[in-house]
């Protein structure tokens, strides 16, 4: 357990402009193409581009990963996860407003 070695990792920053195609995107999210397609059907993900050349922004990876965690940990259906994601977005937006107003959000 203690034979740690140091690897120098070349890190690539995925910025807002980074676009991934469907297979790349699904792999990066740690899920299947079918799951991503289901999320699109539920309106939880809006891909850019037209089929078959649809692309996804790197920022959406975090969103899909969050959906996967919620679904796994609550045995929740995708539509209910969609509602959870919307509510979480709303909370985040409100927290941001509090922040800007300088209130403690502790």
């Amino acid at each position, binding site marked *: 357990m203690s034979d740690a070695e140091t690897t120098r990792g070349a*890190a690539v920053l995925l910025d807002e402009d980074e676009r991934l195609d469907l297979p790349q995107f699904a792999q990066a999210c740690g899920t299947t193409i079918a799951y991503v397609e289901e999320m699109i059907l539920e309106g939880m993900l809006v891909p850019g581009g037209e089929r078959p050349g649809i692309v996804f922004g790197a920022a959406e990876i975090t969103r899909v990963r969050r959906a996967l965690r919620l679904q796994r940990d609550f045995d929740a259906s995708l539509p209910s996860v969609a509602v959870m994601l919307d509510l979480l977005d709303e909370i985040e937006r409100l927290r941001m407003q509090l922040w800007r107003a300088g209130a403690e959000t502790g």
Partner: protein
Amino acid sequence: MQFKDYYSALGVAPDASADDIKRARRKLARKYHPDLSKEPNAAERMKEINEAYEVLGDAGKRAAYDKLRAGGFRQGEDFRPPPGWDEGFEFSGGADGAGGEFSDFFEALFGGLRRHAGARGQRPGFTARGDDHHASMRIDLEDAFMGARRQITVQAPEWDENGRVRLRERVLDVAIPKGIRAGQLLRLPGQGQPPPGGGPPGDLYLEVHFRPHPLYRLDGADLYLDLPVTPWEAALGAAVRVPTPAGPVEMQIPAGSDNGRRLRLRGRGLPASSPGDLYVVLRVVLPDATNPKARQIYETMARDLAFDPRKDLEKQT
């Protein structure tokens, strides 16, 4: 490695029914889910809960684990799995997609099976590349401002020649690019999981989070700073020194500023092709009236200033 008491992790009795276990896990998930919870150790706790449920929620794994536990092991005790401990029990696979997420204890007991499950369950449409892994990384504002190198330790399960699993720690030396923002992802090609059958490893994604900063709040590339000012600085205007991540600058407070006024220092936020701004929020602080001189000045103001901050309230009634 240390023995883990999965029953105490879920807060259930060893004779709890399958339904009790499910209920306990749901309840704890609502409290500790890292996407919902503000508990400081939520992610860590959720991992324990999921690991415990992975075992206790599966009849086969639970039976094998119960036999081990009946041997008298207690939480945190030094532990090696006795040879043949799982004989006669039937369970399949490790946790789905949990590579590296669970403890070495879990991996030693149940991880060995994932290799076979993984090899069979190859996802269609993919080459034999290993899974991509995700981890989060907490950095300081200064790291994003200047760019930095940080070391991060990742754990990944590894199979030895006997097919046994253990967690191997790797230290990655990561260059944090200048101007990185909260929630952005860093991809480290080839630093994910190698596939069970051998082949090119997947990538590792690091999600960037910022530790809270004692002075600045972050909003994308913009920074917010609360600046305490005196009533006379706010009323009469003043030149003040303001800290910025790049060092203090002089700023002019316009006369007649109110509490909460926001002043913008353009381009003093996080660096980027169009750098963020630093917003300075004025916080007027009153001197207390405990010493006689201050008291006298307040009394003079009360007498000489025709100031009624509530006059609009009066009009309404």
